[in-house]
Every structure is written in structure tokens, then in C-alpha cells.
């Protein structure tokens, strides 16, 4: 049994993003070499460093799978509360954190038919549970919860194609790069209309911040940046959004 072209594609694209960054390489090398170099002579120092490293990492340790659950819960909750209830068991704590973000989200996005998908959400959960029992008995409990809940978390009436979304957003980015922020903004509105809860919503919001800056609409840009940062403070795009056409603290109006 061979992998399909799609699956190979997925692996190949992921592969581009799987290696550590140059900065991470540098940090890791320096740390490891220090620790093995010093370690032979001064075990105590190494032990301390190790403990510190473990302490600092354990505070923020959560698996990719759990992260996915959060994303899944956000998507699911947009569709309807039924989904949240159905999938809350593997990771109850995220819900409390997610809830306020969802409220923000509904302010930010003008959603055409928000409640229409609610029954579907429940259906999907039930289907997934019925058809895929092994997902729930995977070892390594915390990380396994993500994917088990993940696929059930798309209570969208029609799954939005990430390819379409990317095409639209790329186009917007190109207009912006080409010095046409207004055109970019109008493309972003198109994206918002066609993919109100699209998977690249955060990217749309970020590009919109840059486009508003480019158009000289600084106040709006900062407001949009604030919304973005409130909603996705830990997004990979957050640092850039925070810096966009404002001083480091976009909170100040």
C-alpha cells in the first residue's frame, strides 16, 4: 500500500516547516555544547541547568494534539454549543479560556448563518466516535485527545478549501506588496464574506492590519491589531501584527 500524491504532498509541505529555525539551532548547539563540555567537570552545574530547562519547559508543555483541540474547539463552538459539550471530556480546561475568544470572534466576523450547523456538529461527533473507536484508545492520553476530537471539529456546512483561501489571501498580499492596499482590503473583505470562519481567518486578520497601515488608516489598523492580538495572542503572526504601524504597545489608542 503506497501513499497517495495528496498524502505525499502533505508530508512534503510539512517537511519544509519541521526543521528548527536557525536561531533555535544556534541556541540548542550552544546549550548542548556547554552542557557536555562543562558537564564532565562540573556535574552540579549541569544538573541545575537541566532542572531549570525542564521547569521552564514543563510550564508551557502541551502537545500539538492538545493545541489542535483548542483550534477544534474554537471552530466547533462557532458552529454550536452542542459540539463543545460533546467533546469537552478529553480536555476540559481549554473551554474556559476559549469562551471569551469566541465572543470576540463573533464581534469581529460578520457571520452569515452562524447557528445553521449546530445539528451537524453533534452528528459529526457521533459519527466519528462510532466509526473510529481506535482513536480513543491510543496511548499517550493527553496528546491523543487532539486528533480524536480534531476531525469532528468541523461543523461547517461545506468544508472551506484551504487552497481557495490561500489563493485569495495571496492575491490580497500581492496587491498590498504591489502598493495597492485598498485593493488588498477589498480582497480581504471578499475572503471574509466567502470564508467567514475559514481556516486562515487569523491570517486574513493579520494581512488586514498591514493593509490598513498601508492605506494610512492607522487608527483602524491599531483597532484591528488589538482585536487580532486579543483573539490570537500566541499566533505566529502576533509579533508582526503588534509591531505594525504602531509602537510596541498597540493597546494604547
Amino acid at each position, binding site marked *: 500500500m503506497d501513499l497517495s500524491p495528496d*498524502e505525499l504532498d502533505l508530508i512534503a509541505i510539512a517537511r519544509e516547516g519541521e526543521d528548527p529555525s536557525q536561531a533555535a539551532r544556534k541556541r540548542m548547539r550552544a546549550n548542548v555544547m556547554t552542557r557536555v563540555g562543562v558537564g564532565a567537570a562540573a556535574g552540579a552545574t549541569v544538573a541545575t541547568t537541566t532542572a531549570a530547562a525542564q521547569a521552564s519547559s514543563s510550564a508551557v508543555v502541551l502537545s500539538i494534539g492538545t493545541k489542535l483541540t483548542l483550534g477544534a474547539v474554537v471552530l466547533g463552538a462557532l458552529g454550536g454549543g452542542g459540539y463543545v459539550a460533546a467533546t469537552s471530556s478529553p480536555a476540559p480546561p481549554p473551554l474556559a479560556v476559549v469562551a471569551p475568544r469566541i465572543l470576540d470572534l463573533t464581534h469581529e466576523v460578520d457571520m452569515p448563518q452562524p447557528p445553521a450547523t449546530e445539528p451537524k456538529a453533534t452528528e459529526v461527533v457521533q459519527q466519528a466516535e462510532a466509526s473510529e473507536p481506535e482513536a480513543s484508545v491510543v496511548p499517550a492520553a493527553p496528546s491523543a485527545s487532539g486528533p480524536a476530537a480534531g476531525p469532528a471539529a468541523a461543523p461547517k456546512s461545506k468544508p472551506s478549501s484551504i487552497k481557495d483561501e490561500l489563493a485569495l489571501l495571496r492575491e490580497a498580499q500581492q496587491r498590498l506588496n504591489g502598493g495597492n492596499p485598498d485593493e488588498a482590503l477589498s480582497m480581504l473583505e471578499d475572503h471574509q464574506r466567502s470564508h467567514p470562519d475559514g481556516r486562515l481567518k487569523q491570517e486574513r486578520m493579520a494581512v488586514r492590519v498591514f493593509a490598513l497601515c498601508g492605506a494610512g488608516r492607522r487608527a483602524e489598523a491599531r483597532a484591528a491589531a488589538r482585536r487580532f492580538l486579543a483573539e490570537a495572542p500566541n499566533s505566529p503572526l502576533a509579533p508582526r501584527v503588534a509591531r505594525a504601524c504602531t509602537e510596541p504597545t498597540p493597546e494604547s489608542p
Partner: protein
Amino acid sequence: MARASRTAVHSEDEPSRLRASDVREATRVENPADVPSFDAIYDQHVDFVYRSVRRLGVAEEAAEDVTQEVFITVHRKLDTFEGRSSLKTWIFGVAHGVVRNHRRSAKRARERDGGSTEDMEIADPITGNDPLRQAERSEAVQILHAVLDAMDEDKREVFLLADLEKVPPAEIASFKGMKLFTVYSRLRAARAQFKKLASRYRTTHGWRMS
């Protein structure tokens, strides 16, 4: 530690594979003292270890620390490397062990902290100028890792080595102490499970990138 003699046949266009094959070649010698220097091992395998650590379910924010722990352990245990498998798969074995320990302590920490999720999503500074390309990659990584996460551990291990890292099945067999036939049949089962999970993800999440 003596530096191994480099005798492998090199292909011109694949410098990174070339080094890997060097080490494989080098590790087949009888004398276990003939493994490359730690520096060389580190440079050669750090990306592989980092990738593997993440594919085995370690969150991005912890991957650097765990990768470092792997190499500290490699450094400590290098003397016990007997050359029965390739150095790459031996390091993978070390990494797998460190990841298991890490999972246990991470789980304890989560329980202790009441499962706070405030810090669960981490910033990965944008390196390029194209947030969308970055998004596409992150997306693919997220999906791949989610699917890997849902796989059975024994299947995932073989799949990861064979299909993601292109480690020859015979090498996996000697690393795991399994019969070649068993490796193949497990790989078959692993691919089937990967396909099933990926397809389910695609259907429900609209993953149609091609």
C-alpha cells in the same frame, strides 16, 4: 572518541544524505570506538532529532529543550553504542526514550498546574516575508502531527522512520530487533492507519491542498 574514517561513496547532489550515509557506513565497523565525534554527530542529526521529537508528539515550545536532552543523553550513552543498528536509528531510540519521559513529566506538570492552557500556543517568529506560505507550512505540520499523534505508537515509529525519514526497512529491522517481514507488515498497517486518519481529517477540515 576517534573520528571515523570517511569511506562512503558520495553522491554529488545530496550533501546531507551524503553525510548520513557516511555515518551509516562508519557505524558498521566492528569497533564501537570508531563512531564520529560528538560534534559531528550533533551537527549531522540535530534536525532529524528535532523533527522526530515533534513528530512523536512534543509541543513546539518544548521541542528545543527535549532535543537538547536527547543529545545530552546521546553524549552520556555513546560508549554503549555497539553498532548493531545505524547511529541514526540508535539516536532515534534515545530520542524516543527521552520523549516518553518528557511526556510523563509534562503530564504531571499539567495535572499540577490544573491544565492551564494560556501558554499552549506558542509564537514561532516569522522568518520569511510571506505569512501565507508560512501558514501553509504550519497548517501541513499541524495536520501531519495531528495524524501522527493519533496513530498507534508502534505503527507511528515505523512509519516515521520508513516513510518520513526514508530509513531502509532492513535498518529498522535491526534497530528494533524485528524480522524484516514484521517491519513490512507493520509499515503496511501504519500506512493504512495514516491514510484513514488523514482522509478523515481532510474530509472534516476541508484539507484540499494539492
